């Protein structure tokens, strides 16, 4: 399965560029590259619904981030204990990766999933044949309350964003 590794290396390179580049707009473009790479990775991993959804979400978040960063820049500063903090952060991240790698012994190897819960779902879905897309069947039949909760979270976010940013946007419009 070499394609997914190539895509992951591309995503890691784009993420490093997004993290380290000084210009904010270039950084936003970098995370856009990570998101498009993720969409292609979903397609390679046989998840077409997720690929479509990720593409739409990526474009929307890119527009929002560009709206936030346009004409606003920040010079890079190295005051404080910059070297000490950076080195200690990197050491702890390396420790995290080492322990995570050791814990991989406890989960199944890549490409051989132990499908147990989905088997129950699938046997029900196959008998009724309500929807050919199994992911949509699970979303609409077994996780319907969860989807309703997701919709209410979206409404709550819209109300929250309006409450936070209403005055700021009105001032923008007056300019």
């Amino acid at each position, binding site marked *: 399965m070499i394609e997914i590794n190539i895509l992951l290396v591309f995503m890691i390179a784009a993420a490093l560029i997004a993290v380290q580049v000084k210009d904010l707009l270039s950084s936003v473009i970098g995370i856009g590259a990570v998101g498009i790479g993720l969409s292609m990775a979903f397609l390679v991993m046989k998840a077409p619904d997720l690929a479509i959804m990720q593409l739409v979400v990526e474009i*929307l978040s890119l527009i929002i981030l560009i709206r936030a960063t346009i004409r606003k820049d920040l010079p890079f500063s190295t005051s404080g204990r910059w070297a000490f903090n950076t080195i200690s952060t990197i050491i702890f991240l390396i420790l995290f990766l080492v322990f995570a790698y050791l814990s991989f012994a406890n989960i199944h190897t890549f490409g051989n999933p132990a*499908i147990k819960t989905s*088997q129950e779902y*699938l046997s029900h879905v196959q008998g009724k044949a309500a929807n050919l897309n199994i992911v949509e069947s699970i979303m609409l039949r077994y996780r319907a309350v969860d989807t309703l909760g997701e919709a209410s979270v979206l409404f709550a976010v819209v109300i929250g964003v309006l409450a936070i940013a209403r005055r700021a946007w009105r001032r923008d419009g007056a300019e």
Partner: protein
Amino acid sequence: MITYFLCLVLFSIGLFCAVRKRNIIKIIIGIGIMEYAVNLFFILIGYRAQGRSPILARDQAITNIVDPLPQAVALTAIVIGLAVMLMLVALAIRIYERYGTFDITKINRLKE
């Protein structure tokens, strides 16, 4: 196994960015990278080698498709991630309006 590890490397790049950068937009970008890595890890857990997409067909069985349950979970998580990013950007724009900077070390005036 190397695939899981590369996914976790992507997660740690996002964590480094969120912990170590001072610009609020960079912190939001780090949180976004972490979220991408976690969504991808869900899908990698459910992948079956030479498996098909989870769409019903006549000869479709549980042994030749990828696991559909992590995909249904990640579908919700992607949309919630967009909502979180919208909220964070609104807060960042508000902070910029009030303090004139994105630098978190300069935002120390609690009231005025």
